[in-house]
């Protein structure tokens, strides 16, 4: 008996346990029967063990070149590095479904373990929903995308993984994106549990706040890694091509961002209950829609390596998910009324509502552009695609409005703000906006988008700086501390608020990086050895090519010497850049370009070897100067840091007497501290 023959029984057992848990969770939750609830919870752990076993077996098969498994034989080869072999597990449909199931099973275990005591009435139903979702993925692997199909013979070698995927960013990008995608299952499951139980107050929101942040964090990291991979691997000089699969990954990000802001309104004011249910359903549904787009191949994409005919199964599942959520919402409509009303237009609630509308507007525009070929074909019989100009034109005004709101929201109080406080809080940031805008115009920025990004970005940074300074000053007074200690204490005790501001700083920097794309300079030329060319502020000399042997490829490498204009002879100045063309003989016999990048704080020099003539030694080279692009990755890193700060908020218990002991009217400003959570 072969150990890999345990794979199918593991998936089957997992499927049966997931269905068992889905039924028992609902029945046990309804009857409040501890035995049934215990069995449902046990099934979550049991299913996870089965999925873990299946995943472990498949990974072992990849690492040991077990080519009797058809999936292994078609996705790896002996010459591949061990790290890429492990990553090749999710290089195709079957393995990526298994990775999805593994991540979901892991999340389900954690959610059940963490919330079983805290939210005992919601957990049985949430566990049941999570098990039902997991059952779908296991059923896909049992009946259709089977990862453990054995061949009748053992091939001498595998066909290898698509060379484009043999990149460390691509190895890390799918797991991160999946952690983000699948992460929305937990908030969705608790939302459905809240609908089923009718407990639609703050309890489910309290349960999922951090889960939403975790999903959002991983979606951010996944999208950043994906765009970085596109930048360094696809060899076209850009980081975002509005490809349908890229769009599918960014849509839940925008909806998730809206949800993270709008749940704060429900937490504090008991408003937007229906809206929040709709948003979390949309975020989860978009993750399934993204998988449908990736796997169906209904829309042409650079991710065509992942297309199969299973996409329509996902479309059916998506319909079921949305249908169930709509039916449950309809059933509980009377419990979804707001507990309070908007007190003033000048309030943070109202700023958050505008932010929600803009985020959803962007998500909708992306959805429309992505699915337009599909929609136009269904409506007129003619397939009409929209390209990057559509997405840029629609999203540019929406996104700069969003950037402005990032600055407005933090300086307005919840409930209402008086005219006097508004004047006081906006005076300095508006002055900064005016000065930054004027300075940018004087320096020669005449594109409206770039001007708006500079002015609104400066405004947002100014409001955040003002907020931090005022908070620090208040703490310096109340704690008699120095500025550094007060700042650290302020952030440590209000991590959610200041983590959020840190994310906003990162967003401003990402905007700066995106605006840099308006000023790209590009030149292409055929160069013979010793020839020179110039692009932007750089001089480039082509010195000829080398042939190099990699572990599973042969590379033609161009040697370029690059320096700032006039700096070619300065000692230590010229930079050596070596763009490559690689030939992978195994299986697909594919040629890829490996770009060379000289990254500097305010611009990247990006070199592509487009072709090579062996007889003359001439090389076809494209050189691109990308201004500000580094700030996209720096801003992304700061966003991630901010999310980690917000996530590190400790769960505080409400102290007995915390409120009762407090005097009925205000004392001098209390030390700002972290709000208690349940």
């Amino acid at each position, binding site marked *: 008996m072969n150990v890999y023959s345990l794979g199918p029984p593991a998936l089957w057992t997992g499927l049966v346990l997931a269905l068992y848990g889905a039924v028992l969770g609902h029945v046990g939750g309804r009857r409040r029967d501890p035995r049934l609830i215990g069995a449902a919870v046990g099934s979550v752990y049991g299913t996870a063990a089965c999925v873990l076993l299946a995943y472990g077996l498949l990974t072992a098969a990849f690492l040991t070149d077990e080519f009797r498994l058809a999936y292994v034989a078609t996705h790896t080869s002996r010459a591949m590095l061990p790290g890429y072999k492990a990553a090749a597990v999710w290089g195709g449909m079957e393995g990526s479904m298994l990775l999805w199931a593994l991540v979901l099973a892991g999340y389900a275990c954690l959610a059940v373990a963490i919330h079983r005591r805290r939210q005992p009435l919601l957990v049985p139903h949430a566990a049941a929903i999570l098990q039902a979702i997991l059952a779908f993925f296991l059923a896909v692997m049992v009946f259709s995308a089977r990862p453990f199909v054995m061949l009748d013979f053992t091939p001498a070698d595998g066909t290898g993984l698509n060379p484009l995927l043999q990149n460390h960013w691509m190895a890390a990008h799918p797991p991160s994106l999946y952690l983000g995608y699948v992460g929305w299952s937990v908030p969705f499951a608790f939302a459905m549990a809240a609908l089923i139980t009718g*407990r639609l107050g703050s309890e489910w929101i309290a349960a999922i706040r951090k889960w939403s942040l975790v999903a959002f964090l991983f979606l951010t990291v996944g999208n950043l890694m994906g765009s970085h991979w596109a930048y360094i691997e696809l060899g076209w000089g850009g980081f975002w091509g509005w490809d349908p699969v890229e769009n599918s990954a960014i849509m839940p990000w925008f909806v998730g961002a809206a949800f993270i802001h709008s749940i704060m309104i429900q937490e504090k004011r008991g408003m937007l209950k229906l809206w929040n249910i709709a948003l979390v359903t949309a975020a989860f549904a978009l993750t399934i829609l993204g998988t449908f787009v990736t796997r169906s191949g209904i829309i042409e994409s650079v991710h065509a390596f992942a297309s199969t005919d299973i996409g329509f199964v996902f479309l059916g599942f998506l319909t079921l998910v949305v249908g169930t959520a709509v039916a449950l919402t309809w059933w509980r409509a009377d419990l979804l009324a707001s507990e309070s009303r908007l007190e003033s237009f000048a309030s943070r609630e109202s700023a958050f509502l505008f932010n929600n509308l803009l985020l959803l507007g962007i998500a909708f525009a992306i959805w429309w552009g992505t699915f337009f070929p599909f929609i136009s074909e269904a409506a007129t019989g003619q397939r009409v695609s929209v390209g990057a100009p559509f997405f840029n034109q629609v999203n540019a005004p929406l996104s700069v409005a969003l950037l402005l709101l990032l600055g407005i929201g933090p300086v307005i109080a919840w409930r209402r*703000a008086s005219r006097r406080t508004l004047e006081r809080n906006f005076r300095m940031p508006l002055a900064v906006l005016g000065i930054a805008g004027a300075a940018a115009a004087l320096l020669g920025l005449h594109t409206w988008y770039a001007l708006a990004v500079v002015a609104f970005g400066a405004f947002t940074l100014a409001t955040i700086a003002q907020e931090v300074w005022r908070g620090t000053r208040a703490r310096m007074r109340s704690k008699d501390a120095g500025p550094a200690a007060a700042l650290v204490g302020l952030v440590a005790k209000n991590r959610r608020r200041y983590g959020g501001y840190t994310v906003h700083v990162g967003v401003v920097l990402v905007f700066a990086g995106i605006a840099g794309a308006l000023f790209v300079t590009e030149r292409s030329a055929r160069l013979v050895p010793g020839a020179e060319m110039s692009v932007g502020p750089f001089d480039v000399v082509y010195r000829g090519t080398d042939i190099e042997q990699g572990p599973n490829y042969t590379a033609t490498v161009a040697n370029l010497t690059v320096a700032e204009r006039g700096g070619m002879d300065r000692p230590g100045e010229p930079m050596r850049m070596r763009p490559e063309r690689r030939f992978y003989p195994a299986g697909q016999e594919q040629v890829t370009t490996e770009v060379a990048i000289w990254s500097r704080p305010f611009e990247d020099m990006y070199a592509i070897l487009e072709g090579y003539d062996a007889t003359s030694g001439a090389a076809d080279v494209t050189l691109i100067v990308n201004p500000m692009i580094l700030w996209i990755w720096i801003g992304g890193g700061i966003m991630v840091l901010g999310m980690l700060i917000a996530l590190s908020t400790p769960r505080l218990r409400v102290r007995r007497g915390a409120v009762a002991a407090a005097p009925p009217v205000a004392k001098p400003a209390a030390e700002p501290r*972290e709000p208690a959570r349940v």
Partner: protein
Amino acid sequence: MTGVLLTLAGLWLLLGAVWLAVYPLLTRGGRAIPADAPDRRDLEVEKARLVAEIHELDLDRATGKLSEEDYRAIEQRLKARAVEVMREIDPRRG
């Protein structure tokens, strides 16, 4: 030999997985969720929410986002509701 041992270990893992799901049905079960649990839970959540909101209010005042009158009016309203909620949670405190 190693393959057989690994296969047996895998089979034991699958049996363990099934056992995790079935065992709770064979026991007498844990403590049932009390009938008043939902109401109490709601009140505890609301108490925590109110305390959080009062602290946020303090921070908003400290950073100059609220006028003194608005601060006092909102704080009084929140504290009055918080005391009410605590009395409902524990009648002995009333």
